[in-house]
């Protein structure tokens, strides 16, 4: 592949104004699918199901099968629409989007087209510096997910060069809400940052609503980022590209930045942008062209004749509105006060996209400061090294349990980091790892005293020095004891015991 020219980011922004747009697919965590009573793999109860074991006739398009709408999915979609500040359509309906693909059991996707359930909203996002930006929402509509294709026989497991593919319909029919923004103007230099903050906000909203697990790494939240550039002063929008497959907040940020630089280089060289979908490559931090928009995009939408209009009662809408959780920005202000963090400490959490994790860890019993340290410290370090998100490593409840062991004196900070390593490796709960690895602090004074005796025997003058007021001499003994106990001793307790001995 030819080397792609990129323009310096700041220079690109001098010449061009970026216009953004996002389509986010949210997988709902209902118990069953959008149009069938099959278990929903995006619900905790059905994680890890074997291929094709969460399938009802309509999910694989069996002859004679019919869809029936999941009432809970509709309520979730209304709640999400309301949380996005949208109007809820007095009447909305489903439509068929017709295209052939092996992961699509019916070879049409049931979606919403001209009458989405929610439209015309806006959502406030908060940038790292605390600035608030308003993102205009065009619509949020209900639809179903497709199945999963695994490409076999190729070198990389990718579609190119694969000999054959395997199809699993477990994911087919998982309820989705697709959130579509209007064009976002005025992002300027902060375009990548806005992209990231917007995804984070949507994630926070759906989590607060409890309608999705919202784990990007699991595909619960999938973002397509649209980017176009127009020369400064030009009214007409430039041609946009739609970058798919950007499945972490960091990637969205990088992808938007990359597309701005790539498009700017093409335009500055007198070229034109092709309207196309592009693929994001996490490894190289680049995008590559997919399929150009073409005849194949004639989806032949028409109203789904097997389903009826959704006409939510005004009382239902008001009931769901009343039950909405607070907006993320307000929520953040409240947490900051409750946790007593400094501005810097709080920004650290927010910028790391770790608010929900810290909150869940605190909810599970950890002190806010300790929860923050784990997530912004060790977990972020490990995640960065592994190229993933901290949230993908461990569950907040497990972090809280780990901290409990530290608070109880069972673990030192250093030991706790070793336990965390075991947790990330999937060795079990913190307690199980402590037991299995034999990592607990030795709290038996008898064992400590024996080790102290041994150390004093090797350094007989230490007690004398302490009695002479040279308390720091205890350090040599403490060091020797810690070494003998392979770190599994509480240094403070050892110190106490040594001082006791000296004053005896």
């Amino acid at each position, binding site marked *: 592949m030819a080397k792609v020219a990129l323009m310096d980011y700041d220079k690109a922004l001098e010449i061009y104004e970026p216009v953004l747009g996002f389509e986010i697919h949210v997988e709902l965590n209902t118990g069953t699918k959008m149009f069938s009573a099959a278990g929903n793999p995006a619900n905790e109860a059905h994680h890890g199901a074997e291929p094709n074991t969460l399938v009802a006739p309509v999910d694989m398009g*069996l*002859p*004679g099968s019919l869809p029936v709408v999941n009432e809970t999915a509709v309520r979730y979609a209304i709640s999400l629409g309301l949380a996005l500040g949208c109007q809820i359509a007095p009447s909305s309906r489903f439509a068929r989007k017709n295209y052939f693909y*092996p992961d699509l*059991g*019916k070879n049409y996707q049931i979606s919403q087209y001209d009458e989405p359930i929610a439209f015309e909203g806006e959502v406030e996002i908060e940038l790292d510096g605390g600035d608030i930006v308003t993102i205009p929402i065009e619509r949020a509509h209900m639809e179903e997910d497709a199945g999963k294709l695994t490409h076999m026989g190729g070198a990389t497991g990718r579609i190119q060069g694969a000999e054959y593919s395997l199809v699993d319909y477990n994911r087919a029919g998982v309820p989705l809400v697709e959130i579509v923004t209007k064009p976002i103007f005025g992002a300027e230099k902060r375009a990548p940052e806005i992209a990231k903050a917007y995804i984070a906000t949507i994630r926070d909203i759906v989590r607060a609503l409890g309608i999705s697990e919202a784990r990007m790494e699991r595909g619960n939240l999938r973002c397509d980022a649209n980017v176009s550039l127009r020369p400064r002063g030009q009214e007409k929008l430039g041609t946009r590209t739609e970058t798919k497959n950007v499945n972490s907040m960091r990637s969205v940020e990088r992808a938007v930045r990359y597309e701005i630089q790539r498009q700017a280089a093409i335009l500055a060289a007198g070229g034109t942008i092709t309207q196309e979908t592009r693929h994001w490559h996490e490894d190289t931090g680049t995008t590559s062209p997919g399929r150009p928009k073409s005849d194949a995009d*004639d989806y*032949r939408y*028409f109203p789904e*004749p097997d389903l009826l209009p959704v006409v939510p009662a005004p009382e239902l809408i008001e009931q769901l509105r009343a039950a909405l959780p607070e907006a993320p920005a307000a929520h953040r202000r409240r947490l900051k006060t409750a946790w007593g963090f400094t501005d810097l400490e709080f920004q650290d959490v927010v910028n790391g996209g770790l608010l929900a994790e810290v909150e869940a860890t605190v909810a599970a019993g950890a002190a806010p400061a300790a929860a923050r340290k784990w997530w912004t410290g060790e977990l972020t370090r490990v995640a960065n090294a592994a190229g993933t998100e901290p949230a993908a490593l461990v569950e907040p409840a497990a972090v809280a349990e780990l901290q409990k062991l530290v608070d109880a004196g069972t673990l030192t900070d250093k030991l706790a980091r070793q336990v965390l390593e075991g947790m990330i490796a999937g060795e079990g709960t913190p307690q199980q790892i402590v037991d299995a690895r034999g990592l607990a602090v030795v709290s038996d004074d008898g064992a400590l005293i024996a080790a102290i005796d041994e150390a004093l025997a090797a350094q007989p003058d230490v007690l004398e020095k302490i009695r002479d007021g040279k308390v720091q001499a205890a350090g040599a003994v403490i060091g020797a004891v810690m070494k003998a106990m392979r770190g599994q001793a509480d240094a403070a307790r050892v110190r106490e015991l040594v001082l006791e001995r000296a004053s005896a």
Partner: protein
Amino acid sequence: MTDLTRLTAADLADRLAAGEVSSVEATQAHLDRIAAVDGDVRAFLHVSDHALQVAADIDRRRAAGEQLGPVAGVPLAVKDVLVTTDMPSTSGSRILEGYLSPYDATVVARSRAAGLVPLGKTNMDEFAMGSSTEHSAYGPTHNPWDLDRIPGGSGGGSAAAVAAFEAPLALGSDTGGSIRQPAHVTGTVGIKPTYGGVSRFGAIALASSLDQVGPVTRTVLDAGLLHDVIGGHDPHDSTSLAHAWPSFADAAREGARGDVLKGLKVGVIAELPDSGFQAGVSASFRAALSAMEAQGAEIVEISAPHFEYGVAAYYLILPAEASSNLAKFDSVRFGLRVDVPGGTVEDVMAATRDAGFGDEVKRRIILGTYALSAGYYDAYYGSAQKVRTLIQRDFDAAFAQVDVIATPSAPTTAFRLGEKIDDPLQMYLNDVTTIPANLAGVPGISIPSGLAEEDGLPVGIQFLAPAMQDARLYRVGAALEAVLVDSWGGPLLDRAPSLGAGGAR
């Protein structure tokens, strides 16, 4: 001993209940009849190899004193559009050859639960696209009245099976007349219920907003008995009505004995062109109206100015919905797969659909794809849906004046096999009288009105009623049936030539 195959389902059910005959005997009699005549008629695509076991089980349960339903033990033929777990379901298409469904259609499940004994699956135009059964991938069914003629379609197999005494009851499906038009050309009874009155779950979809499953029988009472079994709300079909339906068998009995026709206002459509109708069909229709008038019915001319747009709207809506419904036949999960050495999955899909679909199916898929494609939606599908509104308004206006509307069930008697196969447009015009009911969702019934003078072939009269008023059709149909059968001195089918007597297989 009585020939059990000549009994109506109602009579057979009575004898079964009284213990005079067993279900095994009744089932065996029909299997024997199938063996004797179906080589000529070809109503069945598949005959069950375990019908006798099912019948024996019913007999056992009855002997054990179990309370069984009114039609328990009566044999039933099932249109191949309905999926069944124990017999292949092909919808008359090569693309589904040998397909075994992991679940039963709701109407089949309800039939089994009622103790009906499925005999086999009946032939049909491929995916129910046709009016002659000539578009079946497995060869045409022959009309028992004249084996050189069509049995109607798409449900020619079910109608022929019933007309040839191979089964007393059959299930059909009606998207634009596929139950009523075969009834017309075979001298049998067929009902398209109100849209949503019978579940579509497990009926291989042709056009979702038009399809409806219904009974195919020899008498109106038998149809009511079967309708009572299969009808009612089904949570698996979102368009199924949660309506409290009366007993249609009771309605038929009431019609047969009462004076339903007295004071009944029967609408005839002013705009229905006389020209397209065969003389004998028109004559039979007028004679039936006269018979009703003689019983005190009042014939009222009504106007339905938009019915003439029905065929056009139908041939936009049906192909559009069908093009989408039939997309699932793609070689990935079930059905035919054509190997394309070195081909991509797209190549395999396209080759499979080329090989697996017949000409009529391809024609309608391409037509429907065109009607939905960018730039045409409003002009075609959108406009066709507006015609539905106009036709519904015509019905509303008419039913403000009359109790039922009457039409000939189809323009001609059974035409010869092959006569219209190369002229799709002529074939489409067969459905001119039946289509409005599907577009508007109202119920319709076809019962025999007599034989056409010029060819001695059966003619049917169709009655239409407002939505949900299916029971009215049973009352009126049974009343006219009683009058006509009385005037004929016996059922019309008694005059059909006997089959299988001379050297049938």
